[in-house]
């Protein structure tokens, strides 16, 4: 059963995109007036977000929204899976801008309205964490290529570097004596990976704007790579000639590669990647182990990006 019905209406029938700032004002007015809203329940700080169907659906059962928004890795808010949902209440993702610069013809800043204007679609992707668990998530986002086109990458640009916001006042693990990672969290893709049609910047899930714990307001989604590549709360995107650093790769290069493509044949030194646990529902006995697919099942689309590469070396 799919409790959430993903979008399947033709794009022509969708009402014109309403700015969600406007929507937020409506919600606020409604709340102030003490009106009972007949809208679907919203996680703290999220709002309805409209999108057209994006045509990606693996046809597997969706991971319940409660699991998608309460079982997260977002070390800025804590290292436990429940920490991001618990500790991200202070985080305020609005207003927000992403600076796009580096080896581009037209460096620019984009605010959320400008990003949404790039055309939001709903896409259902598998998500495979490097820790051997997985989900199926209805994201809302736009192809990263649409954003890159706006800034006109130079011919010499080979890579794309990403950076997460640093806000110690709002992100508890960015202050204090024990900080689990060096900040800012950084990630990178090869330019052809970044331009690949599967690569999106996501601004929402389950029909709503992203909850803080999922990387509000904008995060990367590369469904054929391990989840840690999906950098959250992005403030800067820089095109570079050299391979940019990636936080986990710098921390433990023998455990986390730059590419981090999902690969059941290359184990993490401390656990096997051959199988994965599909998160959500069922408890011990309904819990759902399944074989992990090469490139997380997106091999037809992405395998050619890595032609001739030894994936046990470039893991």
């Amino acid at each position, binding site marked *: 059963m799919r409790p959430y019905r993903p979008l399947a209406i033709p794009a022509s029938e969708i009402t014109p995109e309403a700015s969600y700032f406007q929507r937020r004002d409506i919600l606020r007015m409604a709340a102030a007036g003490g009106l009972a809203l007949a809208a679907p329940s919203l996680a703290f700080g999220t709002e309805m977000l409209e999108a057209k169907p994006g045509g990606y659906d693996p046809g597997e059962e969706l991971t319940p929204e*409660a*699991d998608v928004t*309460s*079982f997260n890795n977002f*070390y800025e808010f804590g*290292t436990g*899976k*429940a920490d991001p949902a618990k500790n991200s209440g202070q985080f305020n993702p609005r207003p927000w801008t992403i600076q796009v610069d580096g080896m581009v013809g037209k460096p620019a800043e984009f605010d959320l309205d400008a990003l949404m204007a790039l055309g939001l679609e709903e896409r259902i992707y598998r998500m495979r964490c490097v*820790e051997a*668990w997985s989900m199926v998530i209805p994201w809302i986002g736009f192809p990263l290529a649409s954003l890159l086109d706006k800034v006109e990458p130079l011919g010499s640009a080979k890579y794309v570097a990403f950076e997460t916001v640093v806000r110690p006042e709002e992100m508890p693990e960015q202050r204090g004596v*024990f900080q*689990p*990672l060096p900040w800012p969290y950084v990630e990178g893709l090869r330019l052809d990976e970044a331009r690949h049609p599967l690569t999106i910047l996501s601004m929402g899930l389950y029909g709503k704007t992203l909850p803080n714990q999922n990387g509000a307001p904008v995060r990367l989604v590369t469904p054929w790579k391990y989840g840690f590549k999906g950098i959250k709360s992005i403030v800067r995107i820089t095109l570079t000639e050299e391979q940019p650093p990636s936080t986990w790769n710098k*921390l*433990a290069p023998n455990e986390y590669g730059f590419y981090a493509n999902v690969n059941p044949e290359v184990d993490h*030194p*401390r*656990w*096997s990647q*051959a199988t994965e*646990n599909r*998160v*959500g*529902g*069922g*408890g*011990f*006995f*309904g*819990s759902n*182990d399944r074989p992990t697919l090469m490139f997380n099942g997106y091999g037809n689309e992405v395998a050619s990006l890595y032609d001739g590469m030894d994936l046990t070396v470039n893991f």
Partner: protein
Amino acid sequence: MQLPTLPKRYHAASIWALYALGLLPAAWTFYLGATGQLVGNPVKIFEHLLGEWALRFLILTLTISPIRDLFGVNWVRYRRALGLLAFWYVAMHFLAYIVLDKRLAFDVIVEDIFKRWFITIGMAAFVLLIPLALTSNRWSIRKLGAGWVRLHRLIYPIAAVGALHYCLSVKVIGPEQLIYAGIIAVLIGWRLVRPRFMAMKRGRRPQYGKLAAEIPRTD
């Protein structure tokens, strides 16, 4: 420091209460997991909880004699229960791993135990705990005499390895791991300075004969 003492007639009952209380986290979490009330990855949550409680009971086992040395409070009667609880938690942690996590895929389990360092040493600690658990009874103490004391000193390397296993099992070592490892380091370190401390203490006071430190109580 003078704590109210528990009347002797309640000693046996308090030990059974400790067993019951000690097994509660495992029982309750198993119930939540079996009925689908653990959000996210129920198997891992349960497996981790068992590992953490194993470590906590190892720590508690090691605190009994320093508490007596330092504060004169004798809780040695609870030490066997604490040690056995530690053993049962490690055993349940192991079972959760092979049954719930690895679904009895023995090829994978064997590979894990031999190939993945942190599991190798965890397994070693578990194996070493078995003779301790088997000899945690009056009959063995009497039978083994001084050998019993020597055998049960294995608890120190076991606890140290348990802490190391914990540190190596996580992606980034954080405050939790350091706190557990730190406590265990202090408790083991205490054993090294203890002889000197006790000599000092005795020097200041009349000697009441051999301190019962190493003599296991059987009540």
